[in-house]
Each structure stands twice: as structure tokens, then as C-alpha cells.
């Protein structure tokens, strides 16, 4: 079992409120959280990463408490050791491809130099076929390359798990197909737990060892998911 989650969070202001109340386990290596936009997918993923603090509940990863409102545990995002792929990649626009990948290797107050990062980054550039664009900025490379940079950046620290936020939505259909295949092979190779959120049913076919269905802020099992998935979350707001 990788993630064990039971959290609730009230977001929004007085005019529009949204209750996120999810409860699930991810026994599979790969988990796809599938649902329409506005269902609470991104909030759930952010909570796993430590970017959103739930109001109450707990999150554990491999039996380590990351968040527990009762025991007052809240491991900050920087200490969780997860890789996170943002929907539109969130590459640092003023840094080169190489600096972007090396970003997480230095935790001080200064960014890596244009030649920084050393052998780890060299290897990563080769593995993701980015050697030729290493000195370019994110705005100067193609969409597929941008995604590879974001993946390389997320994986360079050897994260314990990889969190993917709609990884293919920013790509055109043809590229989407190719990057799915690439990502599929990559995930097989690195073998760390992966949680992906998506609203694209195609992603379910490709990556769904374990699929969870999210709607209106709560997660439920679909007819075909493994029995490990908990019953529907608390529905009342």
C-alpha cells in the first residue's frame, strides 16, 4: 500500500463553497484519479504533495504520517520527497533547461549556474533526449520537450513517488499519444508509486491499474475498481 488518505477541506469564500471529502487507499503501483473538472482532483493531489493543508484527517505514505490533524503532523512539501508534474509544467521561464532540471539539487538561496548540476543532470539530459536544448529556455522548446524537462526535473532527486496533474492535457492529440507511450515506458522503468489525476478517459486505459472516481469532492469506486477501494466518502456538507 502506498497512500492511505482520509481528509476533508472546505475551500472557497462565502459565495461559493466546495467541500472536499475524500477517503481512499492506493494499493496499486499506479493509481488514476478520474473525474470531471471541478470535482476536486487537483485539490486532492495538492494535499498529497503538501501544497494544500486539509482542515482535518490524515495522509500516510508507506505507513509514514505526512499529515495528521489529531497528532498535529504536517510534513511540509519540501520534506515529502515526491515528484510533482504540474498541468502546464510550471517550468522556471528565466532558467535554462539544464538549470530547471538542476533546480532541486540545490536547496540554498541561489539558483544553479548555467553549467551546474554535474553528472546527475548530464545523465538526466541524455535519458530525456534534452542534450541539444540544454542551454535553451522553456519558451524556446517544443511542448513535448517541455514535458520531458518537467519530468526530468521532478525525477532528478529520486523521489519516493510521482504525482501527475493532467500530464497530457497541454499537448495536441498526436503528441499526446506519443508522450503517453513514453511516460508508460518510463514509469515501468523507474518503478515508483504514481498517482495521476485526469479527466481524459484515454488515460484510464493506459495507466489505470487502480482507478478511483472522483465527483463533487468525494471519491468513490467505479464498478470495475479493485475491492480495496473504500466506500464512498462522506457526502454531506
Amino acid at each position, binding site marked *: 500500500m502506498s497512500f492511505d488518505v482520509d481528509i476533508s477541506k472546505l475551500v472557497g469564500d462565502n459565495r461559493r463553497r466546495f467541500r472536499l471529502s475524500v477517503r481512499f487507499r492506493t494499493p496499486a503501483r499506479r493509481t488514476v484519479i478520474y473525474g470531471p473538472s471541478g470535482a476536486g482532483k487537483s485539490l486532492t493531489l495538492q494535499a498529497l504533495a503538501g501544497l494544500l493543508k486539509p482542515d482535518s484527517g490524515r495522509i500516510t505514505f508507506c505507513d509514514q504520517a505526512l499529515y495528521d490533524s489529531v497528532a498535529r503532523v504536517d510534513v511540509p512539501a*519540501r520534506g515529502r520527497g515526491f515528484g*510533482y508534474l504540474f498541468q*502546464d509544467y510550471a517550468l*522556471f521561464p528565466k532558467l535554462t533547461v539544464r538549470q530547471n532540471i538542476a533546480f532541486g539539487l540545490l*536547496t540554498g*538561496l*541561489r539558483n544553479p549556474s548555467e553549467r551546474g548540476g554535474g553528472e546527475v543532470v548530464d545523465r538526466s539530459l541524455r535519458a530525456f533526449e534534452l542534450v541539444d536544448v540544454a542551454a535553451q*529556455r522553456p519558451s524556446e522548446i517544443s511542448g513535448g520537450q517541455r514535458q520531458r524537462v518537467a519530468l526530468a526535473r521532478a525525477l532528478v532527486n529520486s523521489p519516493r513517488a510521482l504525482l501527475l496533474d493532467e500530464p497530457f492535457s497541454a499537448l495536441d492529440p498526436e503528441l499526446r499519444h506519443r508522450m503517453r507511450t513514453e511516460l508508460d515506458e518510463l514509469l515501468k522503468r523507474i518503478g515508483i508509486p504514481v498517482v495521476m489525476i485526469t479527466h481524459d478517459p484515454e488515460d484510464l486505459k493506459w495507466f489505470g491499474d487502480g482507478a478511483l472516481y472522483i465527483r463533487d469532492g468525494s471519491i468513490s469506486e467505479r464498478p470495475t475498481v479493485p475491492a480495496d477501494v473504500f466506500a464512498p466518502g462522506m457526502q454531506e456538507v
Partner: protein
Amino acid sequence: MNSAVWITLALTLKVATWATGINLLLGAAMGWLLARKRFIGRELIDAVLTLPFVLPPTVLGYYLLVVIGKRGWLGSWLYQTFGINLIFTWQGAVIAATVVAFPLVLKSARAAFEAVDPQLEQAARVLGLGEWGVFFRVTVPMAWPGILAGTLLVFARSLGEFGATLMVAGSIPGRTQTLSIAVYEAVQAGQDSVANSLVVITSITCVVVLLTAGRLAPFRTAPVR
């Protein structure tokens, strides 16, 4: 051109430089606070700090006299405690120029900090950075062009400050008389040649500042993603 003109220019640059430095620190800090923190009275503070932009400089000068004048509530304390008097000094001119130009850097800095994509900061956090690292490696580099542009405008505005400076610091040649005030005095005294050279020097200095501002920080840079 006589040496008095150069002394006036040097004094003007000194006052503008100090006003710019103070405004950079205060303006960036307040801009960040207004952009990133939610607190009661936030927009009211923004409005009050923007007042110098719309108030007549003479009105500002009057307020400054009320505050830092010898009988002002801050000025009297400074005088009695430290023997410091700011009225009719170049430091007084710095305060006047600082207050008048402050909204320029405040507005630029607030807009610049608000324009930083929070997702980039989130990405840095996930990649292992603490909050100081996020601030200095992501937030500041992204906001810097806007802050710098505002700072250079502050410098240009401080160079030309007239009304508030005249009321607070007066017009003592060689001590508090800045370029813009010297121009006024020269014209009043019918010294056309002096006025001419002062006007040319002021114009050239301002053009250089604006060109530098445009080169360092283009105002219409499209956000690159």
C-alpha cells in the same frame, strides 16, 4: 557654466539616489505585503500610500511640515531627543522626494509580485526549497523587472521634485537647492543663461534615466511561460 550649477546637479543626484534607495526597500516590502498578505484594511493602506500620487505637492509639503517640522509631532521629538532638525536640510529634501515618489514603486512592486505565478513557487517547494529559497530564487527574479522599472521611475520623479521639497527644505543654494528649484529661482531672477543650462542638464539626465529604465525593464514584456 559655473561651478554652482555642478554643485546643484550633484546635490540633486544625491537627494534622488537616497530617495530611490529608501523607496526601493520600503516600496518592495510594502508591495509584497499588499500583494501577498490578506489583512483588514489592506486596500485602505494601499489608497493612503497612493495619496502622494494625486495630492498637490504643496499639500504634501504642508503635511510633512506638520509631521517633521520643529513643532511637528515627530519633528519635535527628534529635536528634543537627538537635536535633529530636518527642515531646511538636504535630508529633509530626501524625505520630501521619497514621499512624493513612493506610489510609483509601490504600484509597480505590488503589480510585479501579484503577477508571479504561484504555481512556480509551488513547484519550487515540491523540489525541496524552504520559503526563503522560494522567495529569492523564484519570486524575486520573476518580480524584479517590474520593481526595477518602478524604481527607475522613482529616480526620475525624485530628480524633478519641486513643491514638497521647496516647502520642507527651502531653496538654499549649495545646500538644499535642487535643479528644479534652481530653475525657478533663475527664471525669477531673470538669469536666462543659467536657467537655460539648468534646463538642458535636467532634460538630458531625465532622458538618460528613462532610456535606462526602458532597456533594463521593458514595461510591455509579455509573460514568458
